[in-house]
């Protein structure tokens, strides 16, 4: 099975992705992660205005069979939350890099992406 790993994102070993340009970044979980979890039924996310810290938990995603912490790839302030997931958590399975995004963050530091994996590095990890 082959998983989608868009080249325009950066990744964590724990299977979160972040966009890497613009004043705010979007964060979600990877195609591989949603497949491992199976049917996502619940997400718990921070609220706009909350602070997140890179490599630290910012929420929880639950599938029918598993519970998994969400780890933030960056540090910064949450500017938006994908509230569509509260009523339709299956969007995480259906479109993990698009409509299944989780939070938007305004990073607190410009070099926030240096330690993240590139698409190629992440693909090597999951294959």
């Amino acid at each position, binding site marked *: *099975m082959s998983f989608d790993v868009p080249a325009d994102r950066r990744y964590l070993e724990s299977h979160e992705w972040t966009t890497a340009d613009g004043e705010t970044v979007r964060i979600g979980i990877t195609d591989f992660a949603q497949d491992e979890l*199976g*049917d996502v039924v*619940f997400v718990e996310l921070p609220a706009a205005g909350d602070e997140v810290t890179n490599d630290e938990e910012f929420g929880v995603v*639950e599938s*029918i*069979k598993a*519970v998994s912490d969400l780890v933030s790839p960056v540090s910064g302030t949450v500017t938006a939350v994908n509230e569509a997931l*509260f009523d339709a958590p299956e969007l995480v*399975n259906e479109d993990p890099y698009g409509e299944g995004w989780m939070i938007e963050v305004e990073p607190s530091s410009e070099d926030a992406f240096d330690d993240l994996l590139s698409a190629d590095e992440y693909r090597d990890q999951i294959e």
Partner: protein
Amino acid sequence: MGLRKPPLHTIHADRDASFTEFGGWEMPVEFDSIRTEHAAVRESAGLFDVSHMGEIRVSGPDAATLLGRLTTNDLSEIDPGETQYACITDEAGIILDDTMIFRLPDEGDPVYLFVPNAGHDAEMYTRWIEYRDEWGLDATVHNATEEWAMLALQGPDAPDLAAEATDGATRDIDRFDTAFLDVAGVRSFASRTGYTGEDGFEFLVPWDEAETVWSAFDCQPCGLGARDTLRLEMGFLLSGQDFDPEDEPRTPYEAGVGWTVDLDTEFVGRDALEAVEREGVDQRFRGVVLQQRGVPRHGYEVVDADGEHLGHLTSGTMSPTLGEPIGLGYLSEQAPPGTRVRVMVRGEPKQANVVTPPFIDK
């Protein structure tokens, strides 16, 4: 110790199933998605490989005495070709395992096959042998777990699918009855039972011929993930999780299966259970439905509106049929069905209602 594998392991792997360890077996947990598989069983049909279930054959002149004294129900109630659900309890009345007992169609002395849960077959075989010898009974006990594959065909379309594959032979089997018959030409044992709440059959098939029977049914393959959500919606107990002699020691009365206990029969645990029946229990197996977002899980605490402890959950999931978070567990008699309680989800109290399972109408 390596994991035991069902005979269809390679077939499942080729079908891209994901696997999980369960009771010492490596079993398919998911073929497509739990939601898809669950819906197939509720709406049409699904096929499960449940070869991790044990099979122990008890025969000989004292077979009924031996089996009857080691299980809680009244074994004399079942005739050849019938089935019975029962608990296996220790001297203190604690459930060691629950089991389906098949009385095989027989002539002469009764012959039984009972089905311990995954990983309990060796322990139950030894238990039967030791008690047989202690009591000086004339019975033969045989662990046939790795001689029989077990396939469960479940769902509203299961009777038609079964009839097609058996030249109509399954049409003559009533609910909870059994028969020997040919499935796609393979001599098998069929029982009109299951663990999903749907109509259907469980087939015992010779280990080496499992693939022929598995391939005889054109329907959704299902893994243990969907098996768990289906049984949860029905409030069926899962051995080792909803009861366990070490981690969750419970009597049948606490576990909501007091109806399997016949105190007019002699069995190991009877005297202890008579006292429990007389004195009552402190906690009972109940269902909860969360009224707030969240997913109830094994081990979560249940409290009242003041935060006082009422019990804990032993199973939980997001019900695929209802789209609601449901849980099963042991709650104080102070929280009967209809009570508003709180389930502690990662430190947060979530409102929930206590109900009597099943959660769906079946």
